[in-house]
């Protein structure tokens, strides 16, 4: 899910004071730490994703929002 889509969904259900921060690149190397990413999927990612993008296939973020009073 893209960050802008995430933000739009939060606003749509009624959240306010939305902030998205603490962006950290999440690459294939990071994905390999997770047991849920199988060796087959990691191999597929290495094969299909261009080398210059393998260090950042996604971004971890901290999303904060508030329910209005």
């Amino acid at each position, binding site marked *: 899910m893209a960050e802008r889509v995430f933000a739009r969904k939060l606003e749509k*259900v009624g*959240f306010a004071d939305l902030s998205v921060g603490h962006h950290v690149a999440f690459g294939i190397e990071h994905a390999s730490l997770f047991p*849920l990413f199988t060796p087959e999927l990691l191999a597929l990612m290495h094969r299909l994703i261009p080398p210059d993008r393998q260090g950042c296939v*996604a971004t971890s*973020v*901290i999303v*904060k*929002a508030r329910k209005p009073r």
Partner: protein
Amino acid sequence: MGEAHQDLLFQSDIKEAVRAAYAAIPSGGGDPVARRLYSDEELEEIPRGAIDWALGVGNPVRHAELRIGETVLDIGSGGGIDTIMAARRVAPSGRAIGLDMLDEMRDRARANAAQSGVSGWTEFVAGEMESIPLVDEAVDVVISNGVLNLSARKSRALAEIHRVLRPGGRLCLADLVVDDELPPEILTSDSAWAG
């Protein structure tokens, strides 16, 4: 089969893939993840069993600005690492609730909470983020760590989080966002959904 039925089937397939992937994780798999996300000081207060099952993508408790006396809900609590950290910050008058759909994860989290000494004000409940088993306006803060991206119905899950928060309540979650298109072979992988 109509589109609505196909969509429901797709959601069911995703949920089952996530459930199967988490159930098959070997113990100890979360240690390298925890070392990346939490400080040594933070991990000192967490039992080994919770560190071994740390599978988040960030550190929401660090950013949630929790206060003594607040009620916190941890969506997808897994082995309990963030629930336990949150419980310590809202003690002694607050309350921490971990929500997880997997029986084995809740059992592990309860054992880890007991070892941490926070059981008195911490509970782990069965349920899914798209249908949270709490009454309206039940909690002050909702945290979550790498879990919302597992849902095939993200808007539904966010609406449920909004429902259970009291007016003025806060959401603080860590998750992954993807701004560039990934190859379809990756996006349609069960493991990619689960991861």
